[in-house]
């Protein structure tokens, strides 16, 4: 059997006065509380070839 990790948590008090946030975006997390697993992925692509200069050609339609 694998070695296991023992963790003991005592939550005495969790009281937040005020939470002021401008923005949360692109698979981000704001958490007041407990969790076990968080995995956030975000891909943002704006390469050189995504700046198209020339006649405005529409994209292929939805399938």
């Amino acid at each position, binding site marked *: 059997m*694998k*070695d*296991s*990790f*023992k*963790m*003991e*948590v*005592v*939550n*005495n*008090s*969790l*009281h*937040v*006065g*005020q*939470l*002021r*946030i*401008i*923005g*949360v*975006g*692109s*698979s*981000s*997390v*704001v*958490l*007041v*509380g*407990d*969790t*076990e*697993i*968080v*995995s*956030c*992925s*975000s*891909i*943002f*692509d*704006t390469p*050189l070839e*995504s*700046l*198209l*200069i*020339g*006649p*405005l*050609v*529409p*994209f*292929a*339609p*939805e*399938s």
Partner: protein
Amino acid sequence: MKRASIVGSAKIRSLLFSAILQIGDNYIIAPNSKVLATQREIPVFRGNEGNFASFPIFSASIPQPIINEHIHLSIRNENPVIQVDIVDVIGVSTASVIQIGANRIIQAESRTKHIRQLLQRETETTEDAGSAPF
């Protein structure tokens, strides 16, 4: 003993594109968002434009961490309350999460392809285009 989530007041201006506000506990949150963001010099858009299949970014696999730790977790909640008096947020967007409370798993994914379409300038020479600072 589980904890109750108590929020005095929550003011959120906008919550969009698979964003989630959760007050209280849950097991899993898995928001997912695919965005094709297009800016055109002349803003003419056909209603049905954009096919995710033609951009590999929307189907590329994202490597995920392998979670294989064995953890014996014991939690004792002396004060069974999670309290936030005031929540004041302007925007939550594209597969984001704000939670007051507990969860087990958050698995968020956001994919954005940003394209700008500009018209050719009459005065633009090839020399100028070559020295453009990108």
